[in-house]
């Protein structure tokens, strides 16, 4: 299957304010939010990007939607490089790629009625106003906000979190996009509501044949959504495999720690000690070689010298670790 989204060696640096000394020496310190990321997303696939805060997963999502530009590297959508898009080309891309936000309470303009919010993409895409009402209604049906007229003239503050997230999803779907990025779509919602939104996202993905990326810190949730998961640590992908493999047979020591750390709602769960120590280092000064080595229980001299490349170790399973590559 052809890749819909293709990332090659994507690097994103955020400059930080320079100290006087750095200014004099001509240094440009930067936070390396992304440090050489490459992967493909096949058309119709759903992948999850998982990692702790600051690992670069949100930046990655923004890059794929051309909300920010990579420092180096290329991102292509449907064979076209995003970097060159402007004018009509960019508008075409915007019609096909949409975003679902983490915080539904902030994702809708408080001054817009629900109708205006959902119709805005149609307006921006230059779709005939006569079609708006029908298409908005169709989007509402897709997200199961059935009694339409109850919502259209409401303002965001009059809706609950679950309802708002459905409206946000309706806005993302109203142009019938091919690609959807969801950044922590349920983390702000109550537990009893979360399941409904997740089920809905899975449903629209299947019925509309969407290609989707879910960004999350929660491995347990991702399992219900995506067949494939990328695990990120300090701006790099450390493991890329079918979600089931990640959960049951994690190969990278970081993934192993991540899986072991997730609590489960079962009082008799195994309580294995965490195979990891310390904290995530400063992204401005990551360790040489493998950025995980100073917390890794298996670190070797080699890990400090060479950063392990992300390599396939089994069918569809890639790991960036010297242990696995040896």
């Amino acid at each position: 299957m052809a890749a819909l989204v293709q990332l090659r060696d994507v690097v994103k640096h955020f400059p930080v304010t320079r100290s006087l000394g750095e200014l004099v020496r001509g240094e440009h310190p930067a936070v390396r939010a992304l440090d050489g990321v490459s992967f493909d997303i096949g058309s119709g696939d759903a992948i999850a990007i998982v990692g702790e805060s600051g690992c670069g997963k949100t930046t990655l999502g923004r890059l794929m939607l051309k909300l920010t530009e990579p420092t180096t590297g290329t991102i292509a959508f449907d064979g076209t490089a995003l970097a060159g898009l402007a004018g009509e080309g960019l508008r075409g891309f915007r019609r096909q790629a949409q975003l679902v936000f983490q915080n539904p309470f902030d994702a809708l303009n408080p001054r817009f009625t629900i109708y205006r919010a959902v119709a805005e993409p149609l307006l921006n895409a230059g779709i005939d106003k006569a079609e708006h009402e029908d298409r908005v209604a169709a989007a509402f049906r897709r997200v199961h906000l059935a009694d339409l007229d109850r919502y259209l003239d409401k303002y965001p503050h009059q809706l609950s979190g679950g309802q708002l997230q459905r409206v946000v999803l309706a806005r993302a779907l109203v142009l019938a996009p091919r690609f959807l990025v969801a950044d922590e779509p349920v983390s702000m919602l109550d537990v009893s509501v979360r399941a409904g939104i997740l089920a809905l996202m899975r449903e629209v993905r299947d019925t509309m044949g969407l290609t989707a990326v879910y960004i999350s810190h929660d491995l347990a949730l991702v399992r219900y959504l995506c067949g494939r998961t990328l695990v990120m640590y300090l701006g790099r992908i450390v493991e890329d495999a079918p979600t089931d493999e990640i959960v049951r047979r994690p190969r990278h020591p970081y993934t192993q720690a991540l899986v072991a750390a997730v609590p489960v709602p079962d009082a008799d769960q195994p309580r294995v000690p965490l195979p990891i120590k310390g904290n995530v280092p400063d992204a401005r000064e990551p360790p040489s070689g493998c950025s995980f080595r100073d917390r890794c229980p298996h670190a070797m001299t080699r890990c400090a010298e060479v950063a392990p490349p992300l390599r396939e170790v089994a069918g569809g399973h890639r790991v960036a670790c010297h242990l696995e590559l040896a």
Partner: protein
Amino acid sequence: MRLVVERFAHNALALLAVTTILFFMFRLMPGTPLAAYINENLNADQQQAVLEQFGLDKPMWQQYFIYLGNLAQGELGLSFFQRRPVLTILLEVLPNSLILTLVSLIIAYAFGVLAGAWLAWKRGSWIERVAVPAVLATRAAPEFWIGMVLLALLSFNAGWFPSGGASSPGMAYTNAFQRMASWDYLHHLALPVLTLALYLQGLPLLLMRSNMLEVMHEEFVTMARMKGFSEWRIVIRHAARNALLPVVTAFALGVGLSMGGNVVVETVFSWPGIGRLLVQAVSVLDYPLAQGAFLMIALVLAVMNFVADLLYMVLDPRVSHGRKS
């Protein structure tokens, strides 16, 4: 340290900008550029000296650098009317202005901070409902008008204070310091200080009040309450200490701002300060003196801006201590 240098550079640049603006303001004024520097009352030799000193026969951009060079050496030219170096005149009156400003600011801020904190504590009471509009009204009153009313009431009517100047006629002192430490000087200082303080207390008061109201809702104040600390400790050590941060900046900025505002108060009370000097110089078109007085005020403003930045750094560890982890 790096921040200190940065702030210094920032304020120095602002000052440079002000001098530049001033330079071009005087050049672009109606009439010949020479008029700004040479007054027909000066004799031929003096005129020639000024011409050379300011390079008035040279192109504009050269004049600009000569001007900056002169400024750097404290060379501000001769006053048209007093026929004395501008710098000498300025340095004579500067202490009067600084004393007036500092004394009234300290009184205003001490009162304002305490009263603001108190009003925050009294939130919802009738006192607060009356006090807030009243304080706003003092902020809305022109300073010179406050001075006029006080002068009429306390000086002319009640006779408690002298009506103007910095010392009574006929008094002689061995040096400036002795003069300023004398009872007579303080007696003359009282009304202008009262006027300025009355005007200036509004800003710290309202600022302190709203900061306090905000800080009292911060989680760390609630935590202090949970720890069982006394109400006094919570309000003073935790709430007020945090609420004070922006007020301190306002204080240093206030010095600069009120140096400008002093202009009117000094005029009302014939206080021999730099503001009154500026007014007199402008009204008789004594350009070198006006320019010098203006620059001196701008310099005080820039220095106080810098002090404000430094104070903020000392008081707020989030600025002075960078992120470590």
